[in-house]
């Protein structure tokens, strides 16, 4: 069963997965392109850190994009068939959802491994200045976490109906409207700031996306 679902999902997601894998492999290599030679001084090391940091912003973007697109592709065949085929299969619904979720995760292993291999290759081939160190494994693990978090969130949202999506969008819209009204009325209310703290700061669910994504650091 898993193989059958994985295969059907591969047909829907293969372009996303292949492009994600290429991007995941290229990103660490690009971030250390022209990396400092061993004879570079402290200033060059700082330049390198700045370059690595600026490229680092792309990892959470890639992770979120991969999670989103694979989650959408995961449910696409079922949405298209109005879930009739899925619901008429002889297995409990929770098991079907697990199979779908599992096959999406399996497909995401490719881009995650690509980041790991690219990061290992980049740190091995580059001459890293003294005092700096490569963290390929930590970066790949963090990327894996971010991809899985994004996939899980969007998988849950995509699993719902258009009504569910509408409710979620409605709640987000309501928060924004309340915030705007509060600012216009000079009421001290920082809803968005509080939400940001709850969601993006540790131990918020999306904390993994924030902070510095450094392949090379002190």
């Amino acid at each position, binding site marked *: 069963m898993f193989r*059958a679902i994985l*295969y*059907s999902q591969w047909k*829907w997601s293969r372009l996303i997965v292949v492009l994600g894998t290429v991007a995941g492999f290229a990103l660490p290599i690009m971030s250390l392109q022209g990396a400092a030679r061993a004879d570079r001084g402290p200033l060059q090391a700082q330049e390198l850190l700045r370059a690595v940091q600026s490229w680092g912003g792309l990892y959470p973007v890639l992770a979120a994009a991969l999670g989103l697109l694979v989650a959408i592709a995961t449910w696409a065949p079922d949405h298209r068939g109005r879930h*009739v*085929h899925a*619901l*008429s*299969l*002889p297995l409990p619904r929770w098991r079907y959802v697990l199979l779908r979720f599992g096959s999406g995760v399996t497909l995401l292993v490719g881009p995650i491994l690509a980041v790991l291999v690219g990061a290992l290759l980049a740190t091995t081939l580059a001459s890293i200045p003294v005092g700096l160190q490569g963290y390929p494994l930590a970066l790949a693990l963090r990327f894996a976490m971010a991809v899985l978090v994004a996939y899980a969130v969007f998988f849950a949202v995509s699993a719902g109906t258009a009504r569910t999506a509408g409710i979620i969008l409605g709640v987000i819209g309501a928060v924004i409207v309340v915030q705007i009204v509060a600012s216009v009325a000079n009421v001290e209310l920082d809803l968005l700031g509080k939400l940001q703290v709850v969601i993006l700061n540790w131990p918020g669910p999306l904390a993994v996306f924030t902070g510095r994504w450094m392949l090379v650091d002190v």
Partner: protein
Amino acid sequence: MTNAIELEHLRYRPGKGFEIRDLDLHVPAGSIYGFLGPNGSGKTTTIRLVLGLLRPQAGQITVLGERMPDDAPRVLARVGYVPEQPHLDPTLTVRETMNFQAAFYPTWDGPRAEQLLGQFQLDEQRLFGRLSKGQKAKLMILLALAQRGELLVLDEPTDGLDPVVRRDILAALLEYVAQRRATIFISSHLVHELERICDWVAVMDDGRLVTEEPMDKLKNGTKRLRVAGARPPAALPQTPFVLLAREPAANGGGETWIVRDWRPEMTAYFETIGATLQDVIDLDLEDSFVELLRTFRAPAQGG
């Protein structure tokens, strides 16, 4: 005789308008059961309730002896289902679709699937999304038959297909029933088609059951009578048959009665009311169906 499907006092209301009300159905095991009704009468909704795709608000559904939707996975393993609209993954080829389906059904009959693939002349490398309407219908029938289910639930499987494809599909179904003694629950609004193959028939309209009876009884028991000299309806004593409609004859002489549960010995009734039965005209299933619906809707229109 046991029933393959039993619905008791089923109620389902998806929104404000349409509602399935107090629906009772009894589909005998081994029968070919035709489920007739105009578009929008609730056939597809009923089928989805039977298969556990929808959850009823009230009532009881038993399929192959098990409660639905609670036992849906176990029941669905024994049921072949062809929905009204093609619902399969359009990115899979015919062969891939067969492999996908086979993975979920332990009773999958590979050799039979191959035989039907040849019989239906389907190109196994063609994507499902690129098949014609007739080819899609054939593939869905193939999948349902190769699952070797004890019950086939077919929701307008031949709707919009050309006569050749329809004949191929119906022939495959009849062959399956003959070999496996399976039950077929087939919905359609193509009355003539069901007339040829079904031994039981139910008629549904506006979410309610109009009638459920053996095909022979419906066909042979529904008649158009030419009657002369009958009293007004209020003065008429109890009839031994069900009087569906009574209207002036088209040529101006006497009346036309549409009746159900007619038997030849009932001609004596007309002597007792001082009327003359001039003619008894057989109705085919389509005429019976139309008259049943007309009568069923008449009180609502009047009130």
